[in-house]
């Protein structure tokens, strides 16, 4: 992450809330008896804190540990995750699920950038399609899985669905989608907001009353009501539901009215008629919505002129009913009052709307429905919202509502700040796409490189932050690479760092790491990973694995160094019987992939041993000839360690004494004799490794060489 913002003054982009919160005091039970000498605190992954408490070092040098006192302890402290009811596992699921839409959108953007057709009009429409698709996919992901209803038969008394788990995250995402992405269909904005509130009304406030909570309370009491229309609560509930436009709830409630009962005692004809008339008016309310086939109550229109015409006509019908003479004849006082109130709401009477709603957001929706159905543009909406806020002030801070205000004020800074404050890094990293699509101003704000952020853009900053969050968990670190790879400035550097610090104990982990580093062409990182893995295995006694990785990393230096250690080990154990143990390792060294450094010798040595075995078995001259050739080559090769010279020659005495003919020529024999000479010189040097061969080995080799030389000279004459 780039350095922190230097000065929380006027030029900060994201306002940091400096309001002091009460510090949280946690008491730790570390179980280390006093005095505690030192305390070390360090962050572990995620929100895990490691606290080490140490006692002073013991005064007695020998420990005198009879008091069984521990020297100290490390305690893990898990700090609470306080975000809106979404568990960590659920958040991880969202994180995984948002990778494919994110990747698809970015790769489309990148392919566009390379085609440089940013200005054409076809690009614009295509862009909307892509961003809308992205938004829909993410929205789908945020859905909490709903359990299918237990009872198939609908209970008429269930007027509102109890929402078990409505994610505030999804509500916020939908708000951004409505305002930033569906901007094309701004004329449907009021209807979309009505739908939005219907789903998320329980989230607009945590402490205050809402229409939703009123209805829930009312539903509980419903069983106790004998004559429902006598109860003022009932009428309040109907008018509240009507005010926010939940027409199906209104219809359900009205159906509970006594006038729909079959066993009516009194003469209630006028009352019945009035209830029915109001119900019909409500059910035929004109609505502007794109999808005519939707199961919405009311008359749907998809073009504005049709809608305006129908709306005027409908208003006429409502006011006609309001002025009707039948009201005088209605004997049931509560029904009359209640129905008239409903009509007033339909006619957009401000005092009725205000009293029927609880929260300012609800008031705003009621205004959109009944007083300003033709509203256009955000500016008007913003003014209206501010008026509603004045009428229904709320003391409580609500992230969702602040986000909405930010959107209405057309302030990308505020939207970003609210996203970050309430919903965290995931929301900011993914929501910036919507925000940038919302307006050119926001687009520029997000993508402009900023000097005070270390020349990165705000978008990149938030991707980096999100990637940090992902990389702090052992299960999500690999998807952090997806986001880092999209960051043009600092992404790759951080990715290298991330890959570099992953644990490499198990080969699955190593492969995962290598796979990532190769797919981003970080060859130096993959080489280092292989070197680290190689040394780790080597140190833990897994020699084969160690050599395998170092070979792949083409690390000649280390291979040569460990070769020395390996040769010492072999010098002791490489008898003919134990050769099979080495077989696997030597096979590995024979592969031509990577380098094997000095270890190549082992492969040739094995081949010679094989040939010598065939010679001993008394098989063909060919084998002996080949063996002699390979012996000379081995002795010539600079990679053959000195300590193997004598053993090699001693092993080959039978070759030197080959009965049928001398196998080595004069020059070759001279070479071997020279080597023998070098060896006796080297004996004087410090650091000479003596092979543990029988004492007569040297003399028997010398004798054999001399014999061979003699025979070769005769042969060549």
């Amino acid at each position: 992450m780039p350095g922190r913002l230097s000065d929380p003054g006027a030029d900060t982009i994201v306002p940091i809330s400096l309001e002091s919160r009460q510090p949280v005091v946690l008491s730790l039970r570390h179980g280390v008896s006093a005095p505690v000498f030192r305390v070390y605190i360090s962050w572990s992954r995620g929100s895990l804190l490691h606290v080490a408490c140490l006692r002073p070092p013991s005064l007695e040098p020998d420990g005198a540990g009879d008091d069984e006192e521990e020297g100290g302890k490390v305690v893990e402290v898990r700090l609470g995750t306080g975000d809106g009811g979404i568990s960590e596992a659920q958040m991880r699921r969202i994180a995984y699920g948002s990778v494919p839409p994110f990747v698809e959108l970015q790769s489309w953007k990148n392919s566009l950038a390379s085609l440089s057709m940013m200005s054409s009009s076809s690009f614009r429409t295509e862009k909307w399609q892509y961003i809308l698709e992205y938004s829909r996919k993410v929205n789908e992901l945020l859905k909490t899985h709903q359990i299918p209803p237990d009872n198939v038969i609908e209970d008429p008394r269930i007027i509102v669905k109890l929402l078990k788990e409505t994610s505030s995250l999804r509500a916020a995402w939908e708000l951004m989608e409505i305002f930033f992405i569906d901007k094309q269909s701004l004329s449907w904005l009021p209807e979309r907001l009505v739908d939005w509130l219907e789903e998320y009304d329980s989230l607009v406030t945590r402490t205050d009353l809402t229409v939703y909570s009123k209805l829930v309370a009312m539903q509980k009491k419903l069983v106790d009501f004998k004559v429902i229309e006598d109860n003022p609560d009932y009428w309040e509930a109907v008018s509240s539901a009507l005010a926010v436009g939940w027409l199906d709830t209104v219809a359900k409630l009205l159906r509970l009215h006594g006038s729909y009962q079959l066993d009516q005692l009194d003469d209630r004809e006028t009352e019945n008629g009035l209830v029915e008339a109001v119900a019909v008016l409500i059910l035929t309310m004109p609505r502007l919505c794109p999808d005519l086939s939707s199961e919405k109550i009311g008359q749907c229109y998809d073009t504005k002129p049709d809608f305006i015409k129908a709306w005027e006509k409908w208003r006429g019908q409502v006011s006609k009913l309001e002025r009707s003479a039948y009201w005088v004849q209605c004997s049931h006082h509560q029904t009359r009052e209640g129905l008239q109130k409903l009509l007033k709401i339909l006619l957009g009477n401000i005092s009725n709307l205000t009293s029927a709603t609880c929260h300012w957001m609800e008031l705003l929706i009621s205004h959109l429905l009944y007083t300003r159905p033709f509203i256009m543009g955000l500016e008007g909406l913003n003014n209206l919202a501010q008026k509603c806020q004045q009428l229904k002030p709320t003391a409580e801070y609500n992230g969702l509502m602040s986000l909405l205000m930010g959107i209405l004020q057309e302030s990308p800074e505020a939207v970003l700040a609210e996203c970050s404050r309430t919903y965290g890094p995931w929301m900011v990293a993914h929501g910036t796409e919507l925000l940038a699509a919302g307006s050119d101003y926001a687009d520029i704000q997000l993508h402009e490189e900023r000097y005070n952020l270390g020349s990165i853009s705000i978008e990149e900053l938030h991707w980096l932050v999100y990637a940090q969050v992902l990389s702090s968990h052992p299960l999500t670190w690999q998807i952090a690479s997806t986001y880092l790879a999209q960051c043009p400035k600092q992404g790759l550097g951080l990715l290298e760092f991330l890959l570099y610090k992953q644990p490499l104990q198990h080969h699955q982990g190593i492969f995962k790491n290598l796979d990532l580093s190769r797919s981003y062409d970080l060859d130096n990182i993959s080489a280092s990973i292989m070197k680290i893995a190689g040394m780790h295995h080597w140190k833990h006694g897994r020699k084969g694995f160690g050599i395998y990785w170092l070979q792949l990393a083409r690390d000649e230096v280390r291979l040569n160094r460990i070769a020395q250690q390996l040769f010492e080990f072999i010098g002791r154990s490489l008898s003919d019987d134990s050769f099979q143990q080495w077989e696997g390792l030597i096979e590995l060294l024979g592969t031509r992939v990577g380098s094997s450094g000095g270890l190549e010798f082992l492969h040739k040595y094995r081949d010679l041993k094989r040939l010598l075995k065939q010679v001993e078995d008394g098989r063909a001259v060919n084998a002996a000839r080949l063996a002699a050739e390979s012996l000379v080559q081995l002795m010539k090769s600079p990679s053959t360690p000195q300590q193997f010279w004598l053993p090699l020659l001693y092993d080959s005495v039978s070759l030197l004494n080959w009965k049928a003919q001398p196998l080595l020529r004069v020059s070759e024999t001279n070479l071997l004799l020279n080597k023998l000479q070098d060896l006796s010189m080297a004996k004087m040097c410090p650091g000479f490794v003596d092979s543990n061969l029988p004492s007569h080995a040297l003399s028997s080799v010398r004798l054999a060489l001399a014999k061979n030389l003699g025979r070769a000279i005769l042969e060549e004459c």
Partner: protein
Amino acid sequence: MAEYGDILHRLPQSKSVDAVRWLSSVSAFDRFVASAVHDPDAAVPAAASAIEIHSLILAPSADSSSREHPCFHLRSSWPSSSRISALRSSPTPYKHLAVAASTLSGSLHVLFVDPVDGSIESELSIPNDRSLHAGVVSAIDLLEGGRECVTVGEDGRVNLASIGESRMDYRRVYDSRGLASYTAVRWASPVEFATGGLGFGVQWWDPRKPGGFVSQFTSNWAQGKTTGIVHSIDIHPSRKHICMVGGSAGTVFAWDLRYPQQPILLSGAGGPELLSDIDEVWQVQYDSHTLSSSVNSATSAKLLPVMMCSEEGILAVLEQGEEPKRLLQEYCAINSFDIDPQNPSDVVCALEWEAVGILMRPKAGNYASSFGRLPPSFH
């Protein structure tokens, strides 16, 4: 993304799923799946890893589509002291299902699962005191019938554990003292098995013969073009002389003991290009559901179709001389999979993103099940 009319159902687990196996059950309605899970967020490290036995239930779908969707019901769970490195299962003669699991810290566990209700009845263990393996047990295989389990490790040891009703003993078959490491193992017959390791090396073992392996497949067959590690071996009971091998660099090849110098490449190393050359093939398994176009008798020379899963999220069926058939292309790695021996059209797989996938392939018009895996004693 599923093709060929197959449907993948993802069952989120909220923890890492390292391996999955079907458990054959007695009832046609209950099907059990064993999964090795790991949760790094667990409050205590001892509760981080576990083997879970789930029953798979087909529930009517919540939305309007008429398809059924599978869901998991956790039947039992067994906590493991260390992360599971390999998982195998087999029915046993004692009416139980045996589930064998090895860990990263070197222990071996066998759980006996009740085939009716999926509960864990008893457990046998060889602890991680470095006697069995020093460090990671990289692979195990359970003999059909659950009497014997072979284990191999990065430390270069090969062990045979004999599983009784109440005790488990083991004997060392071989110890390379770290000079070679083994990363895959598979029984070929009740007395022979094959192991795989570094540099695409494959070894054939017969523990009745003294010393080490009986034969070895030379590892430089690729002429220096590529090298890698064997991750998985499968051997079909009717063709026990052929080892199907999957490993690094997107490589799948068959090693025929009768022609040991000439591997048959199905993918990678210059062969057919299904996978990128940086992909890892984590597992291979013969697919008895895919009916090979020409294989209709066990004597045919053609290789049987084989399914593989990879780090880059590919689940595919490979067939000699045919276009590879890609079943899945996920955004995340597929760590392991298992084809249901009783319903070979259904595949369970462990997805890297903390989920189990159930792939249901259309059954219609397929009569391949009769060609399925038979117990080795049959041949």
